[in-house]
């Protein structure tokens, strides 16, 4: 028993605490902060939602306000929102990385639910969930961490998107979800509900049961298998292009857009490129071996 536990611990440590290239850690931090900055710059009036008429907040309980800290007036919220932009810029450039990443993450957790808070406190799939979790992980890890665990933990959060998206379909809809009629229903319903014209590809695909069944099975199998990229890096060669194709297809056929698609790049090994860049850099610019970053 003790041997088994020791073996488990050894495997755990080998998986999480192996060394990691500084380039991969830096690129992931930049991707997380950059994605978050892109989304918040695109919603630059997000704090104005706290000033919506109080009647529009009628479904938001006091406990929910406490959970996300919605007590400040709109001007104070704008000050915090500006601070969020500054901390994200600092995180991108690696300025005080621990403080900037932790503050960015906490402010993202405060602001992200504003998009949906009137009816749900779960603003997932709106672009800020993985940056919030990932930046907190990178923040507590600190700028000097050279082991892989912050990167792998963030990758795990990201892989869970696919896995639990697949799992939730079976959990809620059962195997009835993986049928041609269900996908046909979604193709028609989403195009009708979102008011797209009849020229859309979704309408063109709906009459073909084999195509609909193929989409259902391909989607759910891909979702459930995606976490393999964590354990078998060689699978990234085909899983990452498939993921890109998956998101393009979702956007074109179902009109579902995934703002975090660029975060797939955190599964790429950037070290060869970084080594090449280091080779081009004049020797005087390079950091001496052993100097802390």
């Amino acid at each position: 028993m003790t041997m088994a536990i020791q073996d488990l611990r050894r495997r755990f440590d080998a998986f999480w605490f192996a060394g990691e290239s500084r380039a991969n850690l830096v690129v992931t931090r930049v991707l997380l902060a950059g994605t978050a900055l892109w989304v918040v710059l695109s919603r630059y009036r997000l704090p104005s939602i706290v000033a919506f008429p109080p009647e529009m907040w009628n479904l938001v309980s006091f406990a929910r306000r406490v959970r996300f800290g919605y007590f400040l007036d709109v001007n104070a919220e704008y000050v915090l929102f500006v601070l969020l932009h500054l901390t994200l810029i600092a995180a991108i450039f690696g300025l005080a990385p621990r403080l900037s990443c932790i503050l960015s993450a906490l402010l993202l957790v405060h602001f992200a639910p504003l998009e949906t808070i009137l009816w749900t406190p779960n603003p997932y799939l709106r672009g800020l969930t993985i940056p919030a979790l990932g930046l907190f992980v990178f923040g507590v890890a600190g700028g000097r961490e050279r082991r892989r665990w912050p990167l792998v933990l963030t990758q795990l959060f990201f892989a869970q998107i696919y896995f639990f998206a697949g799992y939730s379909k079976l959990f809620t809809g059962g195997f009835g979800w993986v049928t041609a009629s269900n996908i046909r229903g979604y193709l028609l319903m989403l195009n009708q509900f979102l008011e797209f014209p009849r020229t859309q590809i979704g309408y063109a695909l709906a009459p073909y049961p084999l195509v609909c069944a193929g989409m259902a099975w391909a989607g759910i199998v891909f979702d459930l298998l995606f976490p393999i990229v964590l354990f078998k890096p060689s699978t990234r060669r085909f899983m990452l292009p498939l993921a890109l194709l998956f998101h393009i297809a979702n956007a074109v056929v179902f009109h579902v857009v995934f703002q975090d698609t660029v975060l797939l790049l955190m599964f790429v090994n950037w070290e060869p490129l970084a080594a090449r860049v280091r080779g081009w850099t004049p020797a005087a610019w390079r950091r001496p071996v052993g100097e802390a970053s």
Partner: protein
Amino acid sequence: MNGFPSLQHLAATYPWLRATAETLRLGAFLGFVFLGLRMVWKQVRSQDAQRATTQFIVYAIAVTCAVGFTQIEAWPFSNWALIHHISQPQMLDWIVEGTDATGKAYRIDKRFMEPMPYEDFDTWFKTGFFRIGRTEEEAKLCYLVRRPSTPGQERVARFLIARAEIARQRFIRGQSPGRNGTIVGPFAAPYHFDRPTLWRTVSDVPSTPFVGLRIWQIEWGVEERYRDESSVKRRLLFDYRS
């Protein structure tokens, strides 16, 4: 497989249970923050942080998997459920129109609520608007029969008319009706659900200000509408003029 959603149903029934659930969700996040900061504290004091790091990782895996497998959200730990129900054969939706001084109605472009995504405004609108100033039982009747508006609903209607009017003026000036692109222009992050724009030319908006708001409920069978685009039933639910 559907056992856990009934727990969510139970939580929705009892207000004290809802408050407890919110507290537990906050606790799950605070646990994550506490374990992370404890690790930082040990690093700063030059203590061995390996054990604290392991605990942080294990906690993060445990809580995200618990949320995922139970499908009970505790954001920022999410259940990641998307388009997970069986598609519905019957659909209900609301159409929002603004009216000008002559009473002529125009569809309001979905970008008028930016930065709030239209789908999130729309979901609140359909579930929360008729509850303003009414009990849940009274609110249910509003979906069936037109009823006089409450003062709170009128305040919200005036707010929405004002936003629609700002959007109209921006559109007439040649700008986007919404403001998401003000800083990043056409590179603004899209919303989760892509939607076609309703306002394309100046004829899509009135030349004079919006002064009223109408809500229509539309209902259709998905297959029927696929065969015949016009097979949609409309019912006026709300008509307000400021």
